[in-house]
């Protein structure tokens, strides 16, 4: 298990967004997190990435307890994420967005730059080349010099993934990576996620598109009203009566 979520609870005033959520994410797996709107999926991702503190419960990443860590410390342990309401750096170009994402892996010290050392310049070229390779990988190589605010919706989502990849994470949290994408674009992202997983990266993703989740994820956790209904493989989850009830309602409701 790379990530163990244990009895995570989160209250917002009187609202209980998460009520004791527990499940594990296996190393190297693509794990889906699904559930109706308001089930607490994004809250959980925010807690995992240290942006929102949990009211109670514990998180274990590798062999560290991380539930009290602030966001930048969680990130330093190799957790990168994207946001449901895209949070790019709009005024920066695509390449600059990815360069900014290299914060944890590229030291870029000031002193050699002040002295104009050729080594610093070579190093910078190498970093920029890495950034560009990531852009090419998500299919935005020809957009490198374009400000992020000029991108289409789907391209913004892919750029956010690129920025997250720039820190070479071992756990990637994707909050609705293909929301609002055309089918072809979606296939591209699915292909990208598969290739990342095949390189050993662990991916936890939230998505409403069931076909996408069922095809891509080896494990799926279903949340409803802040609690886990079930965790299992796609085939088990798809026929689980409570899951069907959560999504479609009870058939004998009016009987």
């Amino acid at each position, binding site marked *: 298990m790379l990530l163990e979520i244990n009895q995570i609870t989160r209250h917002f005033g009187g609202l209980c967004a998460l009520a004791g959520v527990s499940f594990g994410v296996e190393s190297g797996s693509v794990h889906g997190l699904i559930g109706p709107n308001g089930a607490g999926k994004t809250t959980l991702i925010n807690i995992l990435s*240290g942006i929102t503190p949990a009211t109670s419960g514990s998180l274990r990443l590798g062999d560290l307890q991380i539930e009290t860590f602030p966001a*930048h410390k969680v990130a330093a342990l190799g957790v990168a994420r994207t946001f449901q309401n895209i*949070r790019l750096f709009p005024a*920066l170009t695509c390449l600059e967005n990815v360069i900014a994402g290299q914060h944890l892996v590229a030291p870029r*010290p*000031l002193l050699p730059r002040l002295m104009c050392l050729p080594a610093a310049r070579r190093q910078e070229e190498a970093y920029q080349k890495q950034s560009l390779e990531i852009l090419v990988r998500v299919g935005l190589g020809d957009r490198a010099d374009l400000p992020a605010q000029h991108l289409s919706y789907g391209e913004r989502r892919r750029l956010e993934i690129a*920025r997250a990849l720039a820190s070479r994470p071992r756990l990637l949290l994707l909050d609705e990576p293909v929301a609002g994408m055309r089918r072809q674009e979606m296939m591209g992202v699915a292909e990208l996620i598969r290739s990342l997983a095949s390189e050993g990266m662990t991916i936890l993703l939230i998505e409403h598109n069931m076909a996408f989740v069922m095809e891509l994820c080896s494990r799926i956790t279903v949340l409803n009203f802040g609690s886990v209904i079930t965790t299992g493989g796609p085939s088990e989850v798809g026929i689980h009566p409570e899951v069907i009830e959560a999504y479609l309602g009870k058939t004998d409701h009016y009987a």
Partner: protein
Amino acid sequence: MAQLTYFFAVYGSLVNFIGINALLALSLYVTLSAGQLSLGNAAFAGIGGYTAGILTTQFGFPYSLSLLAGSLAAALVGFLLGLPVLRLRGVFLAIATLSFGEVVRIAAINLKITGGAEGLMGMPTHTKTGFIYLVIIGVCYFLAKLRYSKAGWSFESIREDETAAAAMGINTTYYKTLAFTIGAFIAGLAGAMYAHLSYIITPGEFGFSAAVNLLIYCIVGGSRVWVGPVLGAALLTALPEILRGTGITAGPIRMFVNGLILLIVILFLPNGLVSLFQRCRTVDAGVLAGAEIEEK
């Protein structure tokens, strides 16, 4: 050559003031580049100016050492102030730094050692034009290199989106405090140089209107690249003289033209006057060409 001597005899002090104002604007630029709206930089200049002035007049410090001490004092106060107030965002930070500025101004009026409301006087006028511009070149070089270092990218990220920056592993408290402290250092340096330029400094010079003027320099010139604040400071400091040259001497009209320029820039050039001249490029054309080839 004779003409140049004449120019300096007439406009020498203007050239000096442009330099000092440009330095002050650069100090605010650093803070702004990390997305933090500070109205405390005039007060940091005051701290630098008074520290350096007191050290030279009352303790017989040499010029260079007072400059250093003034800058460091401002940086230290900036650091200590930054720790609590940088938790505030946007306009709330502006209000907090503004009140800090008032505290400094009122302290300078009421303390004995600062000379009270009459100001501190008797500083030897050691600051020369050449030195001012040498410092500006040095600061600009430093800021240009800082921009593409790890700290510079962190500032950019925080300005663009603080939550996303934190999720990328940027310790936002650390880098915001760093930007604030560097800004305070440069402001303190400018203040210390100013104290040794004008023989006398008074508390009113580092008050609210000075703080707002710095912000206007950055807005008019542009706060995205270091050229902007220098340009804005130069233009707006020279404006009264330019207007005098065109025959407009009345005070209110000067304020009107100032306001008009600010309005036009905000409406039509949201990134400041620099956006007229250049588009900021960070990437080698060669690297980009490489990408196109790879994709084919």
